[in-house]
């Protein structure tokens, strides 16, 4: 006997079907049609089952341009339900054009609540950053990925990179890092630092800074990655080993900010952006994660509010 699937209509919240407002009734719930959402969910399951492995999927046309987060948006739309609370960040900021537009669009086609508070969100779509506040088990982190193939740097052929993944032949990537050390006496990869997931697949963690790469290891939340243009989904499930490639005598290092602190909230121990004042040429630092910065400020600043974010020189 065939198991009975819920009908298409039953998957859509009642108020969505009945309402006459602009987007409602004219589009499916969450924009994508049910077939598309089902395919994307299946590919996500496969990606979770093989941590770090890139799973091809039929990337849909979205009402934003390729390269503006169509991958992340498709995952968000395939996963979102009426009870979800959405947060979208772009380079750590909740207010940049990309984040605002994606948030607006998702709210239009689903009616979910949006937030800037990392703690309150159930679904976080992000570009280039992982929030400073530690994620919790029920949360989902969705990365927008420009280039999903970590080996693209060393091998232009897709066929060849697939063979390399199949055979776990990552010596070319190691060689790239080795040559980097020979030339500069350190590994100069700043973003998109290649990581080995679950001791098997080499993965591109999307262009997050090295600071955030360490947070992927044995994380609490499910991390999903999607490249819309390149049509690939991959995932890091919770409690999975994510090891950045490093040598015994050249260990992986995250960015160092020394004694510098955020000029707005006074935090140390966060990823800082350098801000140069055009008029005075003064160099200050501020938290890249604006929502976190705002939260600390509202609380009355970090533990040592007297400090300034100015650079020593």
């Amino acid at each position, binding site marked *: 006997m065939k198991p009975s699937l819920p009908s298409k209509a039953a998957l859509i919240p009642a108020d969505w079907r009945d309402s006459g407002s602009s987007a409602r009734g004219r589009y499916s719930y969450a924009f994508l049609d049910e077939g598309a959402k089902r395919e994307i969910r299946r590919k996500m399951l496969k990606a979770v089952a093989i941590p770090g492995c890139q799973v091809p999927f039929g990337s849909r046309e979205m009402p934003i341009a390729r390269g503006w987060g169509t991958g992340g948006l498709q995952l968000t739309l395939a996963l979102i339900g009426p009870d979800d609370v959405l947060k979208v960040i772009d380079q750590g900021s909740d207010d940049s054009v990309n984040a605002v537009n994606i948030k607006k669009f998702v709210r239009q086609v689903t009616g979910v609540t949006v937030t800037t508070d990392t703690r309150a969100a159930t679904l976080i779509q992000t570009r280039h950053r992982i929030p400073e506040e530690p994620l919790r088990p029920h949360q989902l982190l969705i990365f927008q990925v420009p280039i999903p193939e970590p080996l693209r740097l060393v091998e232009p052929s897709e066929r060849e990179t697939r063979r390399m993944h199949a*055979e776990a032949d990552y010596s070319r990537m190691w*060689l790239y890092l*080795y*040559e980097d050390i020979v030339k500069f006496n350190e590994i100069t990869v700043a973003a998109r630092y290649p990581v080995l997931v679950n001791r098997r697949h080499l993965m591109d963690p999307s262009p997050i800074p090295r600071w955030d790469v360490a947070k992927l290891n044995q994380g609490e939340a499910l991390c999903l990655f999607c490249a819309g243009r390149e049509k690939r989904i991959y995932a890091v499930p919770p409690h999975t080993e994510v090891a950045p490639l490093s040598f015994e*005598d050249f260990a992986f290092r995250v960015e160092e900010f020394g004694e510098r602190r955020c000029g707005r909230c006074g935090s140390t121990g966060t990823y800082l952006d350098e801000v140069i004042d055009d008029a005075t040429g003064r160099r200050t630092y501020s938290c890249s994660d604006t929502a976190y910065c705002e939260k600390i400020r509202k609380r009355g600043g970090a533990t040592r509010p007297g400090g300034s974010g100015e650079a020593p020189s």
Partner: protein
Amino acid sequence: MKPILHVRNLTKRYGKGCPECFESTGPLRETNQCPRCLSILACRGVSFNLFPGEVLGIVGESGSGKSTVVRLLHFDFEPTEGEFRLSLNGNGNPDRAPGIDPAQNLFTLSAFRRRQVRNDLMGIVYQNARMGLRMKVSAGGNIAERLLMAGGRHVGRMRQRAADLLTQTEVPVRRMNELPRNFSGGMQQRVQIAKALSTRPAVLLLDEVTTGLDVSVQARVLDLIRSLQQELGVATIVVSHDLGVIRLLTSRTVVMRHGCIVEEGLSDQILEDPQHPYTQLLVNSVL
């Protein structure tokens, strides 16, 4: 003494093949292309052994299949048929490429394992340095690539090993960080030799190493190969159409024509007293 490397019935066919292929090609038919199905049998039914520490020569004219044989042994492409076994018991380093069974036909291994065997147990030097070296990676990096593939994760130690190998192959160590495309042809060959020796292979394959080099450089490279071979005692297969190279380097030689071995014997014997008409022609045509 037991052989280190066994090759049995090695065949590589390009094309779909037909039942008449084997009958209608070979030295007797003076062709390696089947007249019926137009398949090319680059090598067919090649069998030989290689003994520990021995230097075996493979000689023959262009298109006789000698390069095909060594490149099949290096897993550069898949054979149509054949068996290839390595028995390292007592020869070479047993803790590398673990689990290589002397009875195992290496052609049936997974691609992953074949790569492991190739990297840990074999070294190859090609005629064209572009095939053996990455021209956009420094000479030291080229050597390190094999060490990295074998699991090396200490940059300092790998650089030291690369420097030692380059010294051994008479490449100035100060040029270690330069790209090999800026090197002369002879120096590129020496870097290739250093790369081939980096993982202390059990078998060294030399595919027309001195072809295309001028005579004085040829002599230096041959000298180097001979002294390294004597020093390391690595079992070596030398492919060449140059009988001078064969005379200088090898102790035993097989002669190939149209994809088949037509004569086999000690190098001196082959060069002084050739039996097969083709070998006689070959020896007589030396300038």
